[in-house]
């Protein structure tokens, strides 16, 4: 039998990612942006 040398991909590595989407943050940031872009703010 012929030994077929296969190009083995390197040893598999494990990657773990945990994502927790917190819409409360978006609401909080949204409120703060409301102030930055309010009529009396000197940034807008």
């Amino acid at each position, binding site marked *: 039998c012929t030994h077929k040398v296969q*190009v083995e*991909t*390197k*040893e*598999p*590595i*494990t*990657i*773990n*990612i*945990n*994502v*927790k*989407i917190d*819409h409360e943050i*978006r609401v909080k940031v949204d409120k703060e942006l409301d102030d930055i872009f309010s009529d009396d703010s000197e940034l807008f």
Partner: protein
Amino acid sequence: IAGDLQDKSLVSEHDLIVDEAIHMNIHQQQQTLTVSSEQQAISNFQSVVNRFMPELTLQEGMLNLNGLFELQGSTFDGKFALANGALKYNEYTAKGAVTTGHIQFNSAGLQLDKSTLHIESVNAGVPIENIEIEYVLHNSKANINHARGDILGGTFNVSELWLDKRNQHTQVTVNDISLAKVVALQQQSGINVTGSVSGILPMSVNNNEVHIDDGLLKSEGPGTLKIDGNPAFDSIAEQQSELNYLRDLQFEQLSSNVTLNSDGLLLLDFAILGKNPNQQQAVNFNYHHEENVLTLLRSLRLTDSVQNQIEHKIKQGGVQ
């Protein structure tokens, strides 16, 4: 009232307005009333709907209703037809609703043989289209035998579901759901996925709260993940260099457990077997995703409306 005393048959003709809204023509022949209500704006029936489903608002659409009402035993037997109805159920809007059916009313309540409700589209934050719902009314209790529709590039099917807030189990199956469209819901720049998933999501209703347990989605075939220009990913990849393998990943197998809590919290546990072609590196990628899907849909609906307002204003403003 044209009364004819000789043959003592009382014939009368009435044009009624019920609940100050519903126009009906009634032709009485002794104990039988022939009722007909043609081309009625369904919004006129809002008062009726408020009695058993207040969260439903009838906005547009034409209804025909005609049949016979027997004074003795106060039973009704007739037909109805709804055309291009637009409805709002809580925050979800539906348009292009069409259905017809044979409806009866007797001492046990409303009875309706199996009918099909077609709905062109529902905007829940995510468009759901070409919906078909087979429904029945049994003693005024509504039952969905089966429902199907198009969503996120694929389709879904729901098996039997009672609409009378009883505790029950049903099964939602999904087919060919495009991963690209699912990722697009996150509105994250620079993340491109290909491939699709199908699976079964066992759904239960307990004291009027809906949840999914032990749902499983599996990829149909191979797919790819490419990440380029996503600020959030770039910042974590700086700390963990092997994450960079995820910038270009080809996967053969992808599966995810699915849990949806009754408060809307969605838990996804992806297991992805793939490899980074450039570095010939095999990768087992486990991705846990937690998000409240109700707030996500609400924010999508809000941004839709904001987006439309901006575009609408700009169109008016000068960019024609």
